[in-house]
């Protein structure tokens, strides 16, 4: 099966018939009717009013290691606990009739420290129970938005999981995973089994980053190149071009929410400095298309490196040598 086929073929069809045992045939006989992911769009869903966002003392944190929020019955959004890693990225989990897509992970490697694998298995079991499916019948795709460790650290937790494929840790393997040959312009369609995810290139924060659009919820997932916090722009022109690509996409496709990987800003626009483990008043993770457009308009006026606040996000244009906004409070 080549990459093109992989993207568009459901996994069930790819399993050789001989490998389906009697139990498999029995399940197949009782196969539930497929879920319709293409009518009445966008599928309604909701974000929590407040995400779990750390604690004053990390060792006294009693929140779950991963917060699981069901945006709607077929879409979960996972978030790492800030006391497990300050990066605390968000990770969408999209369910289709044949496959499940996990986008991004968290900044901890080992299962004994942080059991992302167990949480994802739990979500899949939960979804299967609700929808009368067998978890073994679903293929899990583990992918990440870009090549930074807070997004792929837990990858190897999935190495021994059956029916699972995950992305490699190089730009080549990332492109190859999505079968791309013309990054970043090329837009591929990933079929999860009646639920299409559109994926294209979005470099700028790093060279290898993707944008993801879920046709079911119509959430545009912008990774680390655009999120509610400090958008570290390592390469200006690729980033600006990626923003233009996002705007063009929004001009031609309905988008319910724009969502990034992190939140590093308070509701009233205060910066939570890099590394903080407690963000008691953090802003929501979801943004509007309007906010994206405003940021792009603002970006058009930027001509040199520096930190700029668009009203929604900080654009840290080629400031990787400073990273923060705050000053020494004891200066006199």
């Amino acid at each position: 099966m080549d990459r093109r086929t992989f993207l568009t073929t459901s996994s069930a069809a790819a399993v050789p018939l001989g490998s389906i045992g009697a139990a498999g045939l029995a399940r197949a006989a009782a196969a539930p009717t497929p879920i319709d992911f293409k009518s009445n769009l966008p599928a309604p869903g909701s974000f929590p009013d407040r995400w779990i966002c750390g604690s004053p003392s990390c060792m006294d944190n009693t929140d779950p290691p991963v917060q699981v929020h069901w945006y709607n019955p077929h879409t979960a959004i996972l978030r790492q606990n800030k006391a497990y890693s300050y990066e605390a990225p968000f990770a969408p989990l999209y369910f289709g009739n044949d496959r499940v897509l996990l986008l991004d992970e968290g900044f901890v490697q080992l299962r004994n420290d942080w059991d992302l694998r167990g949480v994802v298995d739990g979500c899949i079991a939960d979804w299967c129970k609700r929808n009368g499916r067998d978890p073994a019948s679903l293929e899990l795709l583990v992918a990440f938005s870009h090549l930074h460790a807070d997004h792929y650290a837990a990858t190897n937790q999935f190495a021994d999981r059956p029916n699972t494929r995950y992305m490699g840790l190089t730009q080549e393997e990332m492109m190859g995973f999505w079968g791309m040959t013309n990054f970043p312009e090329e837009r591929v369609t990933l079929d999860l089994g009646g639920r299409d995810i559109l994926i294209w290139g979005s470099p700028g924060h790093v060279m290898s980053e993707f944008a993801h659009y879920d046709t079911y919820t119509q959430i545009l997932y912008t990774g680390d190149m655009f999120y509610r916090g400090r958008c570290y722009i390592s390469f200006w022109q690729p980033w600006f071009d990626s923003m233009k690509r996002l705007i063009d996409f929004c001009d031609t496709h309905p988008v319910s929410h724009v969502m990034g990987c992190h939140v590093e800003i308070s509701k009233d626009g205060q910066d939570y400095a890099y590394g903080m483990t407690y963000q008691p008043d953090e802003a929501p993770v979801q943004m509007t298309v309007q906010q994206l457009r405003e940021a792009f308009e603002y970006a058009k006026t930027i001509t040199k490196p520096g930190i700029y606040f668009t009203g929604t996000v900080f654009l840290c244009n080629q400031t990787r040598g400073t990273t923060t906004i705050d000053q020494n409070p004891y200066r006199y």
Partner: protein
Amino acid sequence: MEPTKTYNPALSGNPQSATGRVYPNGNPDLGYNLPGARNTDSAVPLHRGKPVVHDYACDGPAPGAIGFRSTYGSNVAAKNRDPRVQVIQYNEDTFILRQNVCVHWEAPFTYLLFGNKGALLIDSGATAEAHLYPLRETVDAIIARIGQVRGWRDIPLTVACTSGEDVAQNQGLRQFAGRPSTTVVPTPLAVMKQHYGLAASWPAGTGRIDLGGRVIDVIPTPGTHKDGVSFYDPYCDFLFTGDLLYPGKINIGNDRDFLASLERLKAWTGSHPVKWIMGGHIEMMFVPGKAYPRFATYKPYERVLEMVPAVLDEAIQYAREIQGHDRMLIRPDFILLNGVSPDQRTLEWPEGVPNINPPRPF
């Protein structure tokens, strides 16, 4: 004493051994009966008629050792089960307390010193809530034990900060409010000066805290904080410098004061023996010039806490260099940040210093 030729590490133990001691199995050249033995109270008498009086006079620094590693957090802070307040006894009269890194990333060090008439707590940690950071409870327990050992009914406690304004060191003060037999040195600068009798002589003069046979000097050292002071302990020969000079990212508040205070401490080392400079935090790693970022809750490669007094010369040299410039300057044992963000980074690497990147925690 200098090692002599009679000691042969190949035969009798070399300094690469696990304990890290220069003489892992002792140094026979020193003999058996060292004068410092008299500084430690004997446990032999079964009944004591009167309270024990310690002898704080000694030639050179009092015997003592940092025999254990500081706690350094954990990869997953939520799963850390280290003590909230780690206690390391340096010697019978000197305790080093460290706040758990996973309670507060600043993980400040707090020092508890005993004399014949009282105890001094230098600094108070970064967390006010006693259930998260039970400093008062720990100090009370140490004082109660020492009181029993020495036959004292009451040990008055003084709590003093190396900077009253520093929220990484003043938060624990609240736990001592209302504690009997306790003097908390007031934190507003003017009142603090008055308390030490420095109202007219700040920053040139010095104050005193008499613990009974052990008189701690208070040396004004503004620079990282406008109300910064350092404490000198003539028993252990320690300078407690708080935020002014420590193995970490030193955020300079005022570069002229900073240099003047370092020079004041340098002059002090000319007239007083100093074994170690003990700061309030550790941020450096044990590879030269590398530091943990702010808010880090896992610091397995931390540098040791103590600094030799020669580091003052280096600090003075580079404090001069940085004066008047908004910049970051890396040295092997500390990093100076003047007029820049506490998270400033730089591509300038000091010449002649090996550039080693320790492995990531995972």
